[in-house]
């Protein structure tokens, strides 16, 4: 693989950039692989990458029905943070966040991780107590967060109206090294690194059946033919229910539409990520200048990547009240993604009823930030057949036991 650098660009500039090679190969499927990963989103690609990097397993196919990164990885609001309340969540999200810190260097692909800081506003006394609780938990979990005053909130984000008559800002949970990253670059960077290790990325290739024998997976049928494998990882987010059904088991998952929108670009005016959960809105400004805004989730099962408009309206109502100056920015584009919500809204990284088949799903509205950590933990599970410490609590059996990982308890939401 030709390394990317400023020097390489300068050299290429002299010949009109004719010399760049493909970022990832476009191979024909082989008849068999050691591991097949279904799903070319961030989580699938990261799983393959860490299987190669940490376990030396490279005879891998990543099968993607559309274009890689075209699922939720390509349509999320890119918030990265690890200020979760429950221990298992804080562990995997912090692992992930710390991997993001060096991801550009690890992948030799600039994913533009921007640790500009994430604040979650406390706008009711109840929320204040909730975030103080999270701050205490984080301190014990090794996650650097603090509860900050309204004045500090205003300093960090001057466009915020902290004395709104309805919900004055009473403080915020602040994670200085949370932030954003360029979502597409995360998928592309992993893909390039996977391809470089010899893995096959098969795009426009939909898995249509999972072949099984004696409680084991033998391979998959795809729109580009049948492919055998020794182990199978299912990492398809919103389509987890579909693929699990092909594999013969049912998940505690429902697929719902979650929306987002961007404004037209304006000059930089907001250097941090702000989440206002009382009024249900969150916003950041991308490096291109658009305000990136998350909308709400539909309450009904939905596989259209659209979602109902009233959520956009509710979100904007909240944000216009929170950031009055944005009323004169314009919505440029709105879209939706299909998120997979589990019974406790926390993810699943788990063995399945099939011995050599593993599933990673349920990241719902908040799994972009988890991509490196989840890939790391899923690789461990696939390679060893048993979960490591990071994934241990995320098994599917927790629903039967009532051992939920519930993040909603501290006034928090998941994005």
């Amino acid at each position, binding site marked *: 693989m030709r390394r*990317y650098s400023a020097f390489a660009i300068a050299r290429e500039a002299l010949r009109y950039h004719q010399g760049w090679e493909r970022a990832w190969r476009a191979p024909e499927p082989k008849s068999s692989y050691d591991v097949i990963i279904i799903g070319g989103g961030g989580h699938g690609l990261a799983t393959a990458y860490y299987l190669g990097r940490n376990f030396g397993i490279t005879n891998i196919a990543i099968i993607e029905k559309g274009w890689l990164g075209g699922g939720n990885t390509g349509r999320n609001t890119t918030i990265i943070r690890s200020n979760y309340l429950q221990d298992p969540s804080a562990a995997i999200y912090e692992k992930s966040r710390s991997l993001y810190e060096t991801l550009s260097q690890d992948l030799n692909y600039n994913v533009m991780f921007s640790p500009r800081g994430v604040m979650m506003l406390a706008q009711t006394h109840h929320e204040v107590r909730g975030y103080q609780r999270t701050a205490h938990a984080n301190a014990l979990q090794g996650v650097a967060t603090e509860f900050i005053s309204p004045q500090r909130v205003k300093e960090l984000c001057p466009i915020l109206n902290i004395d709104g008559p309805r919900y004055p800002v009473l403080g915020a949970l602040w994670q200085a090294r949370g932030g954003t990253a360029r979502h597409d670059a995360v998928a592309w960077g992993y893909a390039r690194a996977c391809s470089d290790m010899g893995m096959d990325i098969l795009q426009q290739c939909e898995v249509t059946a999972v072949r099984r024998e004696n409680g084991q997976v033998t391979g998959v049928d795809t729109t580009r033919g049948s492919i055998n494998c020794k182990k199978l990882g299912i990492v398809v987010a919103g389509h987890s229910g579909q693929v699990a059904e092909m594999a013969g088991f049912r998940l505690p998952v429902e697929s719902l539409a979650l929306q987002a929108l961007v404004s037209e670009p304006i000059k930089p005016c907001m250097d941090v990520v702000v989440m206002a959960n009382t009024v249900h809105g969150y916003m950041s400004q991308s490096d*291109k200048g658009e305000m990136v805004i998350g909308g709400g989730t539909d309450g009904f099962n939905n596989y259209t990547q659209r979602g109902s408009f009233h959520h956009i309206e509710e979100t904007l109502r909240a944000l216009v009240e929170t950031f009055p100056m944005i009323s004169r920015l314009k919505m440029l584009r709105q879209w939706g993604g299909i998120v997979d919500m589990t019974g406790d809204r926390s993810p699943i990284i788990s063995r399945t009823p099939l011995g050599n088949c593993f599933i990673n799903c349920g990241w719902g509205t908040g799994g972009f930030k988890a991509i490196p950590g989840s890939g790391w933990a899923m690789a461990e599970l696939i390679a060893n057949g048993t979960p490591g410490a990071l994934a241990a609590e995320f098994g599917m059996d927790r629903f039967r036991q009532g051992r939920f990982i519930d993040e909603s308890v501290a006034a928090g939401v998941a994005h």
Partner: protein
Amino acid sequence: MSTRLASGGRFLNRATVQNFVFNGKRLRGFAGDTLASALLANDQMMVARSFKYHRPRGIVAAGPEEPNALFNMGRGARFEPNQRATTTALFEGLECESQNHWPSLEFDIGALNSLAAHVLPAGFYYKTFIHPRAFWKHVFEPIIRHSAGLGKAPQDRDADRYEHLYAFADVLIAGGGIAGLQAACVAGESGARVLLLEQTLHWGGRAVNDGAQIDGAPAQDWIAAALAKLTALPNVTLRLGTTVSGVYDHGYVLANEHVGETTPGDGRPKQRLWRIRAGQIITATGAIERPLSFAGNDVPGVMLAASLRDYLHDYAVSPGDRTVVVTNNDDAYLTAIALKEAGLSVPLIVDARRTLTGPLPQRARDLGIRVEAGWAIAAVKGTRRVTGVSLCMQAGEGGVIEEIACDAVAMSGGWSPVVHLWSHCGGKLLWNPEQAHFHPDPARPPLGADGKGFVRAAGAANGQSQNACADADHAARAALAHLGQTARTDLTLPVLEHPTQAAMAPVWVMPQGANQKLRAKMWLDYQNDVKVSDVQLAAREGYVSVEHTKRYTTLGMATDQGKLSNINGLAVLADSLNEEIPQVGTTTFRPPYTPITLGTLAGEARGEIFQPLRRSPMHEWHSDQGAYFEPVGHWRRPYCYPRGAENHADAVKREVLNTRNALGLLDASTLGKIIVKGPDAGRFLDMLYTGVMSTLPVGKCRYGLMCNENGFLSDDGVVARLDEQTFLCHTTSGGADRIHGWMEDWLQCEWWDWQVFTANLTEQYAQIAVVGPKARTLLERLGGVDVSKEALPFMGWVEGTLGGFPVRIFRISFSGELSYEIAVPAGHGRALWDKLHAEGADLGAMPYGTEALHVMRAEKGFIMIGDETDGTVIPQDLGMSWAISKKKPDYLGKRGQERPHMTDPDRWQLVGLETLDGSVIPDGAYAVAPGSNANGQRHTEGRVTSTYFSPTLGRGIAMGLIRRGPERMGQIVDFPTTTGTTVQARIVDPVFYDKEGAKQNV
């Protein structure tokens, strides 16, 4: 030079001059101008700088597809960035300035980027700025961010207002060109409810400037007649200045009406968002002309041919004195002819087609215009405005044949139907190779609730511009048929005639064999600076899906959303991949069609009516007393009532002590009050609550807990039995609606054969808690009800007339004091409240707020939903097994509570916590246990749930959930704080005050 002609301009009212300011210069236009036409009339060729390279940019279009002419407009509280000049009506006093440059439009430091363009190709930042790591956040990203963005960020709160409107129609028609008008006539005259919305301020669309004839007369005549007809129909609603922004599932449509934009401050809403439900939607949105890709096609003065014609006809503006026309189709000849007829010079028509057969080229030649077939533009000369073009053969590599001086270039690459509205909800497209455009595929429309298509395209939007009237007629009839309405058969179809146009020839790169150097100067996306070479680079690097190309190059992601660039871009991509255009496909069309301000989308919901604020009947009294409120759901409840210089903590302390020692009054009106009645009411409540309610005697109250099916505690409250079949269930303030819904859910969906009715009477009653040792004295003073211990014992209730008020009095206590809760019809609430204060003044009556309430209940060890519970806590964790019936076969949550994790003896359980040093444990603190887990996190063994300074005890008290807590009475646990210190606390009984209950039971 761009000027206003002495006469003409069909939209102008020359009698009204309008003064405006651009970049500090005072300029003049006329009423009827757009900002763009007025700027052109003032020879303002360069109006902007592009996003990435800061290239000089001029106006290229006359409609919403304009990518360049975006301005900061207005000032102060009416400042708005990124206003598109071509769709902004000029008004007196308008102020605007160009964007994305420093220090000025003409001299811009950022333009240096342009020099470095060759090291800043698509995606360059993915490949660089990787090392050293810290540089990204501190050096590279700030530089990138600094140069990002177009307009400035507004500063102040918006001075304008916006509103919404719901509308309904059988047939909604988007676009008031001849297709839209014809569709409206057919549907309207057939009696359907029709809504016809046109984004511009004029009806008729392109037909007039395209020289169309209808029924043998100029199109204008037919348009006027159609409008007259439509205006007279009561079932037809017409709107100009209203853009259809988005089509959503089940016929939901958003449209953005521009109401008061040109009259700032006159009190009208600035914009109005129409939220429409339509049975059928006809998208008659016309087509958009495409640019051609030749080197320097972005120099100010290069314009779309039809737009140039529009400026000429509509606003009497000629963007150039000498205009070279470059085209691959006949339509652009209309522009050349129009220029010539206006007395302007057209030195050359460059036509990429090898042979020209149609009558239009002939007419141009007849007018003396030079026409060169098979030619192309090799490059445009000039930087801030066009000074000339160099010409070459289209089939070649760009060898210059000739150079011509000119000050404008009119280009036409063909037309793309506006298929956005068709596509928003999933309508699919077909490629038409003759027209080289995508048009709606009638076999794959967006599907409505009935599974059938609910959008139809008509006219140019359907690829049927030459046949627009008949096509629209057809669409309207199909729409009516779908709705089950009969279309009138006696209407005559207008006969539409256009100047005959010969076939166009797709031309994606000009010249065909252009080398890399030229391709790096051919702009596809003007605003985002995406060039032909960028798309080719993306293809080379494997970003071959059209979606990858879009994201890698940002093609089509600018504020025009690719209205100009998309088809050209994907043609270049297809060419690079050696694929056909339909195989490459389009990117996804998403709402809105043109950007809408967020204020419009938020609508009227600002300030006072941002959200409903629920007020108790005594709300005004509380505000008058200077209460500090806290939100509880949408309610506002007084948190405390500070007096004088008191801070909140002092006020709470006073309120607690006064209540404990004398008399406190609490507005408890927000408590949920739900009536449950019927022969099966007892049985029903036994399923709902963990305890038994069916055995509650009439006249008595009982405390109960409700759980969800997972077993987690969801609400609590006191139930009073009113009569044999009737119970009154109190819920938490935040829980009333939820619990009422929960009850109805079970009654309607699970136990629908049980005879139970419910009614949520929360707001029927004001409720006042009269609390403290003097409570009885006060009620006795009011008189009318025997409130003695004997007549109304603890956990009893009575009904009567207290001091003249019809009341129900409950003897319940959440504070541990002697306490009465008085329910009175809400219309009497304020009067009773006033009376209690007046009569109780000498007894020390004082109001207390929610915080004093919380403190007092914590002193008593009473749990609070939301503090002791958080959705993961079961009643067993709270030592409330006494409130759980062991005898009942079932209740909601019982099975959930039997799962292994719920019965684990290691669960954290409720205890009291007494700090060793008397301090207050910080809110949310966790108790640590030795060691760490496999993920390196400290072990914990509990957490505080409520922690207060107790004014009664003069020290910190807390409740908390501690692993095996109740077994560990007297042990010490450690609570590290976030400041690095540790608070130690002893595990004690959670009841800190009056353990025997002597005080409340007097």
